[in-house]
């Protein structure tokens, strides 16, 4: 089986999940967490000459407002992402993000990972190597999902599927309320 077929299989399964997940919530009353406030503006931020390196908080701010595919809540409110699970090294141009699905059998895990990955790809300079994976020990099929997310070709193929892209884009839209 070549990699393109694999990528296709990945999207097919994702789609099944999306189609079946639409009607009934897997977890109707999840735990929610306080929304953290906006980053406070400092004098250095306003100083023309000082350079601000990209730091963990900045990456966290990029991803915390992503919408959960199931709930009208952000990933931060569901504690799917936390600042302590974000690691960035500006000089070496690497970013690593761990995310924690709300339940170990969450079928949305791949989709959440994909949304995180796409958000970072769109928001960070080209030079960064972006690694998105599940917090170790928090999901039943952790390895499979991590492998899918790490495979560039599979991610690219997934985004060529317009239905999948639609769901990802919805997760990434700023909420209109």
């Amino acid at each position: 089986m070549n990699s393109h077929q694999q990528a296709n299989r990945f999207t097919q399964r994702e789609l099944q999940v999306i189609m079946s997940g639409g009607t009934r919530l897997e977890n109707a009353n999840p735990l929610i967490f306080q929304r953290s406030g906006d980053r406070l503006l400092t004098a250095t931020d306003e100083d023309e000459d000082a350079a601000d390196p990209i730091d963990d908080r900045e990456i966290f701010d990029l991803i915390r407002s992503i919408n959960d595919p199931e709930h009208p809540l952000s990933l931060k409110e569901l504690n799917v992402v936390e600042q302590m699970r974000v690691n960035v090294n500006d000089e070496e141009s690497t970013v690593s993000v761990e995310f924690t699905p709300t339940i170990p059998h969450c079928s949305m895990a791949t989709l959440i990972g994909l949304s995180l990955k796409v958000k970072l790809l769109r928001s960070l300079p080209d030079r960064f190597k972006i690694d998105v994976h599940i917090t170790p020990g928090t999901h039943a099929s952790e390895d499979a999902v991590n492998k899918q997310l790490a495979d560039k070709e599979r991610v690219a193929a997934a985004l060529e599927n317009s239905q999948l892209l639609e769901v990802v884009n919805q997760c990434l839209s700023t909420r209109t309320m």
Partner: protein
Amino acid sequence: MAADNSVLLGLVEEFVSGQVDSKAAETSTGVKNGQFTILQLVEALGVSLSSSQPQTRGRGVQLLSQVLQECYSSLSEREVEVLLAFYENRLKDHYVIIPHVLQGLKALTKCSVLPPGSAVSVLKSIFQDIHVQSLMLAERSCVYNILISLMESKEEELKGLGADFIFGFVQSVDGERDPRNLLLAFQVARNIIQRGYDLGKFVEELFEVMSCYFPIDFSPPPSDPRGITQEELVLSLRAVLTGTSQFAEFLLPLIIEKLDSDIQSAKVDSLQTLAACGLTYSHKELAEFLPGLWSSIRREVSQTASERVESAGLSALSALVSCLSRSVLNSDSEDVLQVFLSLVLKDCQHHLCEPDLKLVWPSAKLLQAAAGASYRASLIVSAAIIPALLEQYNNRTQCAHRRTLLEVLQGFVQPTALSRPADGEDSVLVAFQQSLCGVVFSALTESSAGLQVTATRVLSALGQQPGLMAQTDVEKAVDHLSRLILEEDDPKLSSAVVECSGSLAHLHPKAFISRLIPRLKEEILSGQSDAAVRQRCVTALASVSSLPSVVQESAPVLLQVLASAHTGSCGFSVEEVAAVCISLQKIAEHARDSEEIGRFFHDIIIPHLLGLCLQAALQTRDAGHSSPLTDKAVLSAVVPVMSTACAALRSESASRMAAQAVSLFLDGDVSFLPENAFPSKIQLLQSQAESGGLSQLVCLLMACVCSLPRSVEIPEIDRLLLQLEDLSCTCTHLFSFTSAAKCFAGLVNKRPAGEALDAVLERVMKRISVELENTSSAQRTQAFTLLLWVSKALLLRYHPLSTALTDQLFALLSDPALGSQAADGFGVLMSDCLDVLNRGCHADVRIMYRQRFFAENSTKLVQGFNSAEQEKKSCYLKALSHIVSNLPRQVQLTELPALLPLLLEALSCADQAVQLSTLSCLQPVLLEPPEALRNQLEALFSRLLALTTSPAMKVRIASLQCVHALSRLPEHTVLPFRARVLKALAVPLDDKKRLVRKEAVAARAEWFLLGSPGGR
């Protein structure tokens, strides 16, 4: 007569056989001015009306109908009767004639002299002979209009028709599809329902024929000339469906069904319709459906992601509960409200015990909506919820849990307009008063700022309601607040504490005077606390001071702070002193509502402030000791204190204020100042005084005299104006001559028109011209400043001389030395000035002076730009961007097409200030771009994208915001730029400044979504 007859026959002939449509108008003019009668017309038409050719008959009827449409009001009852009989008969005729027949009937039914019985017979004929839905659009509309006219004039007769009328209407409207006709049909149905027509056995039929449109889904075609909106249709259908409780048994199941829909607007419409039912229905209609309605509402509110659905659901629940609250209790039946609320409580209450799960908020909001619907409902809900919440609060130990519980509690503490206790009734919370205060006080001592913030909000809510806080509770609360002000440095908490103190002090001033103010005073003046603590104390003092009794205690404390800053005993910085002044100004704002506070400022605060500033200035001159009160930042902060207070003075104190200030500044009369230890004969308005900084005190003169009401006469105004003119032209100290010019302008603006004013203006204009023309003069900047402020003063009041002055400013744009200042001057001219020449200072400001100025001068500016040398062009662009960015949005939008080339030019101008102000004026326009912009997108994109790498951070940010705004333009116009924008925005993603990256990320994300599935 015979001649007339032949004329008429000619007209008829030409219309009917000659097919000349214009003859109808000529005929009706003839009938209107009495040349022929309707009878003659009918006679003349005789042959055509009885022709065997349907087309000819049609033409005949058409002519008659068109004439009737013009002349129906002049018909006699007899004529109407005959004509109606004719038309009714024609309804049975060939189908090509029917449209004209209906037009004629429509005209006739508008007559005021309809014979008795005619309405019934017309309607019967229509219902019998016509199948409405097989007619064309315009004819169907005729039928509805006939119904509407007859319902207006012959209501009694129609009601006599009984259910036949309803049946006829139902049959005619069944299947209608056009929105214009639907609006008419809904109007007929609404009339039927609201005016008490007997629906007989056709209730269900009428409901069916109307409810088939519910929920309305209508998107008007683009550029729809009729302008019918979905909103209009929704509201008129809703009025029909909810107009009578007879529909309840059909409507309520329909609503429950439609709530299951996947379309959000259908859900919202259903919920809003349900809320509207609450107003007309009684318990009887609702009873059977309550469980179903409740479970639908609950499902929608707890699952939705949309605030519109949520708020519609909550209002629907609230409407149901208030409807049930209105029902009269029967001795033999159970309390329906109680029954329904226990259902709500059963489903929601247990979620409140899980403060970290998602459903806690939807459940709380549902319960709050139910409780807010009536006093009785709030009694029932509170009795169940408050003890449970209090118990939960005490059992939980995590701050996050406690905070959620307290936030939920807050929603129950604040009564709504509907649930407010009537006079003589107690607050529903009286029973829990003790434990509520206990919980709030314990929360105030927690370590979590979020929890404390919530606690202050609950405290304010409790304090607002009589009987919920005993005197000792108030005192305890004040002590907690004082402690928080002194100890807590979290900015959110501090501002919440200050806000809470403000609202409580308004109701319980005594506790604040006796406990909070002395404690804060001690802390500020102790000289031991750090600046942040002092700043919080000062802010708190300002916020509690809304009543005269409190102001009399708090304002002197702030004065004392200023005094000790002057003597240098506590080491206050300039920023701190300015902050104290800002607090004093906040207190002064209350003078507007309370004359007592105004008098206090006039008698005590202003003389003391003037005295302190004068002392400071004299000391600096004599001893070289520099007091913070001579700093121009501090003086600029003192100005608004005085001008706010003076603007609120009533006539007598205002005149005294003017006299005192003028005699102090003109003659050195210090008698009204406290601690009179000043040398006599101080000369404050001499430019020699500048060495010691005395001249800058002129800003205080401005504060006192320029903000008084216009009716107050300023004594010795001519001498004062002359001195101010001298000072502003000769002084070399920037702050002093600018203040003098502003003061001069403030007085000129209010001076009544007349010879005296003309003389002053002539003199000053001459002086300004002389100075400006002498290019080697050292005082050109001074002259320019005076020119600018006098122009503003006159421009605001539409004085005829203002054009001459502003023309001088335009001319200065090409001046090598003053060009740039002149350009910035247009910013001063167009924006609101904070300390003088604004409406708060009672200045003479005409409405829309900006638009007028722009309309009169935009061409001058464009011409000036085109003819200016290359290096001078930037001044014109800067002036333009100042003017345009101060115009109201609506004017910007209409003027933009003409100015767009110039603004685009300004974007590529090298001056960063010009770039920035142009961007800031473009950005709001881009959110709703005018047509003209569409043709300039190419130029706009290339300039904006180039600016995203500008060396200035603010320019980069502003240009990215503009690029972001452009993503909201209609997709087809901007989609061609997508690839280019995405590529260009990849660069600022790696900008060294975080604020720039943030804007780049936001803009790029939107551009990615553009044209992508699920995006936009």
